C-alpha cells in the first residue's frame, strides 16, 4: 500500500515514515500542503494522512482542491488535528471524503489498525 503523509512538522513526518515503513508500507511524505496536493494529483495513493493545521496551505485547502479535481472519493483520507474540531468542521471534512479524524497525539497502534482495515478492502 502506498501512503502519503502531509504534515508541516518534520519530526512527525519522520516518525510516521519510520513507523509505517517498519510495518512494511510504502510511505512518501511532504512537509507542505501545495507539494502534497501536486503529489496527490500526479500519483495514486491508497491512503492519505493529512495534517490540518499547516501554514500557508492548510489541510482544508488541500481537501478543497482535491475535491475540485474529484480525487477525494478514490482515496482513503485520514486527517490529523491538534485542536478539537467543531461539528461544522467535521461535517465539512466528511463532505471532502475524509474517512477518519484523528487527534494528536494519537496512538500509533490505532493508526496502524485503521490503515490495515483499508488495506483489506
Amino acid at each position, binding site marked *: 500500500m502506498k501512503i502519503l503523509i502531509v504534515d508541516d*512538522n518534520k*519530526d*512527525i513526518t519522520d*516518525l*510516521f515514515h*519510520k*513507523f509505517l515503513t*517498519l510495518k512494511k508500507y510504502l510511505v512518501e511524505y511532504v512537509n507542505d500542503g501545495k507539494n502534497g496536493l501536486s503529489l496527490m494529483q500526479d500519483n495514486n495513493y491508497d491512503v492519505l494522512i493529512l495534517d490540518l*493545521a499547516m501554514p500557508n496551505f492548510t489541510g482544508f485547502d488541500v481537501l478543497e482542491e482535491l475535491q475540485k479535481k474529484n480525487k477525494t472519493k478514490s482515496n482513503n483520507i485520514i486527517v490529523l488535528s*491538534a*485542536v*478539537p474540531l*467543531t*461539528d461544522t468542521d467535521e461535517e465539512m471534512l466528511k463532505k471532502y471524503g475524509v474517512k477518519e479524524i484523528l487527534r*494528536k*497525539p*494519537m*496512538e*500509533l*497502534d490505532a493508526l496502524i489498525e485503521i490503515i490495515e482495515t483499508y488495506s483489506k478492502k
Partner: protein
Amino acid sequence: MKTSQTIIIPFVILSIIIISSLSYFFINDFQKTLTEQVMDEIEEDIKIKTQSLENYFTSNTDKTKLYTIFPEIQGLLKFSEFGSSFNFDKNEWVGIMTMHFKEIIPTNPDIAQISILDIRGEEIVRINSDGKNIQAVSELELQNKNDQYYFKDTLVLSQNQVYISDIEFDEENKTPHESLIRFATLIADGSGENMGIMVITHSMDRIISSIAQTNIGSITIVDNNGQVIYDENNLKQFDSQLQTRYNYFEENPLFLDLIDTTFTIHDEEKQMYKFWNKVSNPNDPKKYVVIIVNVSQDAIFEPIQHTINNLYYFAIVFILVTVAITVILSSYIAKPFEGLIEGIKQVQKGDYDTKIKTSGSKEAIAIGESFNELSSTLKVLKQISNKYTKDCNNQLNEIKLTVDALDESMCLVKTNGDQDITYVNDRFCKLSGYTRDELLDKNLKSIQLEQHQQGSKNIAESILYKEIQYEDMRNKRKDGSIFWTRKTTIPIKNHANKIIEYLIIQENITQKVEHNEQSIEIERKEQQKRHLEKEFTKMVFHDIRDPISVISGNCEILKNTSNVNDFTENQKNAIESLCQNARKLDLQIEEMLNIYHINSHKINFKKSTFTVYLLIEKIIINFSSKIKEKQIKIVNDIDPLLRFSSDESYLSQVIDNLIQNALEFTPKDGGIIRINAKIEDQKIVFQIQDNGAGFSFKVQNNLLKNFYEIDTSNKREHKPYEIRIIICKGIIEELGGKMKIESHQGFGSTFYFELPFEI
C-alpha cells in the same frame, strides 16, 4: 298653509275658468234656444191668429152664403122688382126679415148691419145691431148704394161668390174707430137670375181683439191699404187732432217689400224683433191683412232672463261648491304636508321628540309614520354624534396634551413640503445653537450634514418622505460643532392625500452615538484581541502537541522494535518513563485546552441518549487497576433503566475527574465511593460520595469561588484536584447545570451536580 294655497288657487282659478266658460257657452246657447223658443211661440201665435182670421173669413163667407137662401129674401127681391102689384105687405116682409136676422145676429154677435140691396143698388132693408138692439131702419133712411165700391165689386161676382170688402172704419162714432168688414153676395132667384145683393157688415173688433191678445210684444194689424186695423197705440190708427189716418206702409216703406218674403226682422238699432204674417182674403188675394208682432229684445229676453239668471246663479253656486270642495280636498291633501312641514320645523329647532299625526289617507299615514321613524332615528344619530363629538374633543385634548408634552420633551420642527422650517420649539433652538428667527429663515437641509451610516435606513435625500421615516442624522450647529439626532419625519397630508407639511421630531443622540462609536471601537478591539488570542492559542497547542506526538510516537517505535532485548533494563525503564510522561503531558495539555474552551464558552456539545448506568460502568473500568491497588470499592447505585441525553464524552470527563478526586482522598482498605443519579424536578442530580478525609468549610468555599479566575495566564498554581473541580464546574455550567459540594472534615465528601433532564 302654503301648500294648500298652492293647490287651492290654481284649482279654484281653473274651476272658475272652466265653469264660467262652460256656463257662458251653455247659457248663451240656452239663451239662444230659449229665444228661439220664444220666437217660435210668437210665430206659432201668429199662425194661430192667422188661422183664426182665415176661419173668420171662411166662416163668415159661408154664413153669408147661407143667409141668402132664405126664401123671404128671394120673395122680397121679387116684390121689389114688380112693385106693389102683389098684395105684399112690405112692412110685414121687413118685419119677417128683421125677425129672421134677429135670430141670426145673436149667434153672430159681430154682425153690425145686414142690408139687402136690389139689383139697382137700392137698399131694400137695413138692419143695424149694436149687439143688444137689433133694429131695422125706417124706409126713409134707406139709401141707394150703387156708388159704393162694394156694390160694384159684388155685382161682377158670380153667384155663390162672396165679396169681402176692405176693412173700413166707422168714423162716425167714437174712437177708436170700429173696424168693419162687409161680406156681400149676390142673391139669385130660382132661375138663377141675380136679384140683388145682401151685404152683411161685420164688426172686426171682437176678432181683432182676440187676435190682439198676445203674451209678448204688441200686435199691429195692417190691411193691404196700409191702414192700421189695430195697434196698441191708438195714435197709430187715427190721429183725432189732425184727423188723419196713419198709413203703415207710408211710415214703413220697406215693409211692403218684405211682407211676402220674410216673416221676421231684427231691428238691432231699435232692439226690436218684428214678426208678421199675411192673411189673404180668400176671395180676393189682393186683399189681405198682415198681423205684425213687435217684440222688443227685452220682451223676448224677459221670460228667458229669469231662467238665465237662475242659470247664472246656479253656475255661481256650482263654482262656489267646487271651490269649497277644492278647498276641503286640498286641505285634506295638504294637511299631511302641513303636519310634515311643522314636524320638520320642530326637528330643525332640535326637538327630535316631535311626532306627527298618523291619520287620514293611506299616504298621510305613511308620511306620518315615516317621519316619526325618521325623527327617532335622527334623535339617536344626534346622540351618537354628540357622543362622538365628545370623544373627538377628548381625543383632541389628549392629542394636544401629547403634542405639548412632546414639545416640552423633544425637539420639534415643522417644515413645509420643501423642508423650509415653519416652526421650531425652544429645545431645538437650544440644541441647534440658532435663534428662532434664524431657524425660521432656514431650510432644514442646511443644518443636516449626512446620515449616520450605522443604524439608519439609507434614504437618498432626493426622495420625498412619503411615510414616517426614521433616520439618524449628523447635524451642524451654528458654531460649527457636530450634534447627532434621531430624526423622525412625519408627513402631514391633506384630504387630497397631498403632503402639506412635515412634523419632525429630533431626538438628541449625540452622546449615544459617541458612546456607540467608542463602544464599537472597544468592541472591535476586543474582537480583535479575542481573535488574536484564539489564533495564538491554536498555534500554541498545535506547536506543543506536535512534539508530544513525536515523542510518544518515537517511544512506541522504541517499544515496538523487535530487538527489545537490545535495551538494558535502565534503557527500558527510561523508554517507559518517556512514554508515560509524554502521555501525562498530553493529558495536561488536553485539560488546559478544555479550561480554555470552558473559559471562552467554546465547547460544542454533542448530545446523545445513553444509559447512565453503563456510562458510569465504562468509566469505572478505567480505574480498575487503581481500585485493585487501593482496595477501594466503587459502587454504582444508578438505576440501570435511567436514560439521559447529554454529551457523553464531556459528562464522562466530569465523572472521571470527580472519581479521580475521590480516589485521591479515600483511604485504603474500606474506602467506598458511591455514585448515584436521580431525577428531581426535571433535573438529573448526580452524586459522588466518598468516605475520605473531607474538606473544611473554608476550602469548600474557595473551591467553588475560584472558577472565573482561571485563565491560562494566571500565575497562581492550582493543585490537580482543584483543576479537576474547576474543569468539572466549567463543563457542568456550560451544560446548563450546577455543582455543589458537601463535606465535613473527617467524614468524607459528596460532590453533587445537577443537569437539566432531557431524553
